[in-house]
């Protein structure tokens, strides 16, 4: 349920400022850019009153390579491998988002088998992204190594699947406008079924390892609370939004691809704190397993490419399209304007991590310095996508 936004007074759509207690001096600290918990090169200029945070300004762009302009100088096909490098943890989701936008732009239909393959790969991506993101969160909390390695062990199996299908572990470059690049074999599907069957056991193990851990609960419960009204207004999407209790999953809302055929639930959080986000990712991971089981059972035989779409010399008619998918980190949108030539006139990525960072300061105000690292970890940012 979304609580109606009522408070319309000054500063209603941000967290109220924290007033320092007046004792002692304020301290300004630059956390990062080279800080192990910032998941890349990312800086937070923090103003502290003792241990309490009274101001926090994220500073980024260290990885900026003007991805969007790069896209405007090259052909529609040539952008595809670059989308892998946005959120390098989930390249297949990025491929899908971009392919979806261009398919909307040019009115291309995708064959059934390719749709199933896309769902399978996107959900596998979600599982490995969520597994490693909770692993990193625990790592940031100070549990060095062990939980992260447990998560990576599972991730590795999925990456092996990606490698044997697409040729690359992380930079998959797999989807094309109107389908997918290569077809799977029966062995690959069997291998995938085996891996998927093992994931619930991993989730059980991971939960036994951590969810009732007192230290974890003490550190994360009540930390970094995000109000649902602020979350909606600030355009937060993905697990971060659902942990605040807002039921909004683009797989259910837009039903892009063939998501209307699968039976799955959207887990919701209650408190909107770091612990909810941690738990929500584990629950979503189990729902992804449900989708995968259905998809791997139902996948039909058939072509994987629309015969009308072509690889070279792709020139959509003038127009524009915005396509969005539910990437593991939130709403990943691609906005493409075509002027009828081989390059897009405007190519825009709406990165979920970038928009989700908007409320980093709001969540951190009044918290301790040590919690900043946790809160940042719970947003699950990837700097390749934030900086583009």
């Amino acid at each position: 349920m979304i609580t109606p936004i009522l408070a319309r007074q000054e500063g209603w759509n941000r967290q109220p400022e924290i007033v320092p207690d007046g004792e002692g001096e304020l301290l300004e600290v630059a956390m990062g850019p080279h800080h192990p918990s910032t998941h890349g090169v990312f800086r937070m200029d923090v103003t502290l009153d003792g241990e309490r945070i009274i101001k926090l300004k994220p500073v980024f762009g260290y990885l900026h390579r003007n991805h969007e302009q790069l896209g405007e100088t090259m052909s529609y096909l040539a952008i595809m491998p670059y989308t892998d490098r946005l959120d390098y943890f989930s390249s297949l989701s990025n491929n899908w988002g971009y392919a979806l936008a261009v398919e909307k732009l040019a009115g291309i239909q995708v064959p059934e088998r390719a749709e199933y393959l896309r769902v399978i790969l996107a959900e596998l991506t979600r599982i490995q992204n969520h597994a490693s993101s909770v692993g990193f969160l625990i790592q940031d909390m100070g549990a060095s190594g062990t939980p992260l390695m447990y998560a990576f062990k599972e991730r590795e199996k999925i990456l092996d699947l990606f490698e044997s299908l697409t040729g690359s572990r992380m930079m998959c470059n797999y989807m094309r406008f109107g389908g997918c690049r290569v077809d799977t074999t029966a062995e690959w599907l069997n291998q995938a079924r085996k891996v998927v069957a093992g994931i619930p056991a991993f989730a059980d193990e991971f939960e036994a390892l951590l969810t009732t851990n007192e230290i974890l609960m003490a550190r994360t419960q009540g930390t970094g609370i995000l109000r649902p009204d602020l979350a909606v207004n600030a355009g937060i999407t993905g697990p971060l939004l659902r942990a605040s209790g807002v039921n909004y999953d683009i797989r259910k809302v837009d039903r892009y691809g063939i998501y209307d055929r699968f039976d799955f639930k959207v887990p919701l959080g209650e408190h909107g704190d770091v612990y909810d986000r941690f738990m929500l990712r584990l629950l979503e991971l189990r729902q992804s397993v449900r989708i995968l089981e259905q998809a791997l059972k139902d996948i039909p035989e058939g072509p994987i490419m629309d015969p009308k779409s072509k690889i070279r010399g792709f020139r959509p008619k003038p127009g524009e399209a915005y396509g969005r998918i539910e990437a593991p980190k939130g709403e990943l949108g691609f906005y493409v304007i075509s002027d009828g030539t081989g390059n897009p006139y405007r190519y825009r990525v709406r990165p979920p991590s970038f928009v989700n960072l908007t409320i980093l300061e709001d969540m951190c105000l009044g918290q301790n310095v040590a919690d900043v690292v946790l809160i940042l970890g719970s947003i699950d940012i990837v700097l390749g996508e934030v900086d583009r």
Partner: protein
Amino acid sequence: MKTIEEIKAAIEAAVPGAGVEIINNPSPSAQHSLLLQRETALAVAQFLRDDAELAFDYLSNVTGVDWLDKEIVEKVKVKKTVTKTVDGVEQQVEETVDETRKRVEPGYLETVYHLYSMAKKHGPLILRLRTANRTDQVELPSFTPIWRSAEFQEREIFDLYGIVYTGHPDLRRILMWEGFKDHPMRKDYVEPDDFEYEPTAHDAVAKRAQEHQAKVAAAQNGGAA
């Protein structure tokens, strides 16, 4: 969800003098958009968010687009009075003459907003705002007071396109560093000559590489002399 015509009618009923215009999208996506006026944009945005039926509470995507000055060459038929000698007598005769005219359609910077509703689960509604020109009148009203999600995205557009959002609480560069002068996403942006060129340079880049190397060689010779 209401159709775009109905939304337009609703806006015009709620905000007098809104002057909303529908921009058609010819592509199969059929995502048409509404062009707002700069003066009334904030009121329209407020209405779209607060109206119980529309309830666009979620601003998903904010994009800048740069449209350069366009030179349009068109052929027009013009009536002209021409002096002619008809049957040996000079006369004033009206004649239609073909004439090619060139006119320059001024370019502008555009901001595109994609709105969805989380409460009603509909969308997208696409809004557009255009600046008066590309050089000095580049102000647009900021939507950050209405939708917080515009905060970083408008900063990004300010950084990369140079649109100035009035009413934005913290308008600074976000991806480029402080002190950077230009706006790199503009179509007429010229990259600085500070590359380390690769051995497989192509066409335009190869030409630039040659120029660069000539410059470096000249500088070295100058330094030696």
